[in-house]
């Protein structure tokens, strides 16, 4: 593999931690050095634990240290989950055997084994949620602590489900462990890059079209549901988006756009901007290896991102604060982590009706600010 300039996406270990730390009632232990602990610890904003292994354990074995940490965490009532990092993974120790006497989940997800999505999927596979056919309600899928829109997405989909009179059974993965292990038979998605594959999917919730399709299926599956209020709200709010975009287009040309995100959000951003602003999507750089409905290329390093922006010369850049730092004075809207250099307190969605409103609001303001700034 060639060298990589300023890699932009977290490793598989972080993905596994993001999945398991979202399960209330699970104590996550990062089995590795302090550096491997601090990154997910500061990124995920939830308490996690570490073995903080030292040279001694690398030479003489890490079993004693691992069991010492597990011992200090036992008795809390929480299920313990151990995630290995690069060094323990290559030491040749049989960590699974070490843990055989304990009721501990073990995820072998060292950083070198892949990116965040693969670690998230590996952890979820280990949890192996079993659909409870008698469980009422629907699951919300795609919640990931790393995603700055995750909490907002969940709140928004819960709101829409309430409007339709449908309950939520489980949020994957941001719920108590016992709920995650016994989800309902039907699932609706938010960010499909962190899709669980649990239950029968009724569709996604990114963009008005997806919400309409998904809630049509919700109405089919749940005869008691009243999805009318959801459709009526979509109608009202879509009209507001159309008016705001028409007003923009009355004065300005459609923006040319470079989009950098995971496949799910990138597809949403591109589709929404094309539909309402007739935007010219000049390039899409993917953080992950997901698939989407339009041309895109993998862009995992800042060097690649910079080159794509320089070639595309867009008016608007959609991405993270990494993209913003190489966008000079272009309009910018953030949809993937990290979103640094800006204060964010309220949970904002990208999914659901309010997600599209928030996204378009952000884009229009960024584009108009840039137009007036450049006068």
């Amino acid at each position, binding site marked *: *593999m*060639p*060298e*990589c*300039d*300023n*890699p*932009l*996406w*977290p*490793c*598989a*270990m*972080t993905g596994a931690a993001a999945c398991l730390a979202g399960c209330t009632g699970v104590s996550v232990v990062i089995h*590795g*050095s*302090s*550096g*491997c*602990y*601090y*990154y997910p*610890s*500061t*990124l995920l*904003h*939830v*308490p*996690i*634990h*570490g*073995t*903080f*292994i*030292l*040279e001694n354990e*690398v030479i003489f074995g890490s079993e004693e240290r691992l069991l*010492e*940490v597990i011992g*200090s*965490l036992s008795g809390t009532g929480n299920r313990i989950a151990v995630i290995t990092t*690069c*060094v323990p993974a*290559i*030491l040749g120790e049989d960590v699974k055997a070490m843990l055989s006497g304990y009721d501990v989940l073990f995820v072998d997800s*060292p*950083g*070198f*084994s892949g990116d965040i999505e693969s670690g998230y999927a590996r952890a979820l596979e280990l949890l192996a949620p079993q659909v409870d056919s008698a469980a009422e309600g629907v699951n919300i899928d795609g919640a990931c602590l790393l995603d700055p829109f995750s909490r907002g997405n969940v709140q928004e989909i819960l709101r829409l489900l309430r409007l339709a009179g449908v309950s939520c059974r489980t949020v994957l993965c941001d719920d108590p462990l016992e709920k995650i292990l016994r989800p309902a038979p039907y699932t609706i998605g938010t960010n499909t890059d962190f899709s669980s594959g649990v239950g029968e999917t009724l569709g996604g919730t990114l963009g008005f079209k997806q919400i309409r399709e998904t809630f049509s299926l919700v109405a089919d599956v749940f005869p008691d549901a009243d999805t009318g209020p959801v459709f009526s709200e979509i109608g009202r709010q879509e009209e507001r988006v159309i008016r705001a975009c028409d007003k923009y287009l009355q004065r300005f040309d459609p923006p040319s756009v470079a989009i950098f995100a995971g496949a799910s959000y990138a597809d949403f951003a591109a589709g929404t901007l094309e539909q309402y602003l007739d935007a010219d999507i000049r390039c899409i750089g993917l953080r992950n290896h997901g698939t989407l409905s339009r041309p895109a290329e993998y862009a*995992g390093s*800042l060097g690649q991102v910079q080159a794509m922006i320089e070639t595309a010369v867009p008016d608007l850049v959609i991405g993270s*604060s*990494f993209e913003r*730092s*190489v966008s000079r004075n272009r309009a910018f809207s953030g949809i993937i982590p*990290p979103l*640094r*250099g800006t204060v964010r307190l309220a949970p904002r969605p990208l999914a659901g009706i309010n997600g599209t409103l928030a996204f378009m609001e952000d884009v229009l303001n960024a584009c108009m600010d840039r137009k007036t700034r450049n006068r």
Partner: protein
Amino acid sequence: MSLKASPTLSSRSGGCTLTGALSVTTHVRDAASIIHGPKGCAHHNFSLLHATGLDNDLAVIPALVSSALAENDIVFGGEEALARTIQAVSLRDVSAVFVLSTCIVDTIGDDVEAVCAREYGVPVIPVSTAGFLGGTFHDGVNKALISLAGIAQPIEHDRNVNIIGEMNLEYEVEENYAEILRLLTLLGLPAGIRFVHTLKFDEIGMLGAAQLNILRDPSLVPVGEFLKSRFGTPYISSFPHGLSGTLAFLKSVADTCKIDGSRAMGIERALQGEILADFADLGESRAVFSGPVSDPVSFQAAQETADALHIQVGKDSGSTPVPVHPVVGTAGVKRMLHRWRRALHA
């Protein structure tokens, strides 16, 4: 809620050596830092440096390159991946290349120094920073500073005072530097280089010229000693903390530089009096010190300030928690008092 819920049995939370070293090497603006290891290690650190840079209004993006070791390299050795990466980076417009190792590289036994010793056309400087194998965050800072100091040659001393080992990741790094600059200006002393903060590789050559080095923190004493033995430069082991600490700092700098510091100390004492008068409304309050830090020097500075304002500090039920931060100089005390006012008047 603590975000660092390390088990109580753990006393190993000294941070990552690699991060410490990168906080130094990435501030040599015309050099590149190669992280020899999996991409994840480079991403973790790039993300952190990016975040702290934005917090500090720095538009510069650190030039980090990962040798991007994958499973195959880990099985068969990563030396060729490193050589390839150095080769590629050396062709860019860089004055030097720093090579920093990671935990996994030391575990698989790559000979990083030998790879760095090959000819690449630019200086290639290895810094041993293998996470837990190398030590703590502070060890990483010290190792990087000493590696870089080894490049500079002894030269004739001038009147400048160097600032050594600023905490480049701390939120108020520029404000703390400005405070030291203000105090040096009071003494009529010019500031030398900031070793290492937003520096060019060639400027490291001026390191030995200063008449005095001021260390950011006593954990840098090994660096101060190295510079003293290499260039004969005396050092002061820390930025000043608290009101009396700032006056003592002025005296110490003046004495070491063999100048009269009495006028500067008089001006500073008057400034401190004015600040305390501005916060007289806090007098007779009842407070209890709270985090985020628990180091004795910061608590001592806070206690001294509370005493000067007649704030009663104790744990009785009517006490209001006031934050204690590591404050630098008189300006740091003033900023802390604004936070105390918010807490006490809430």
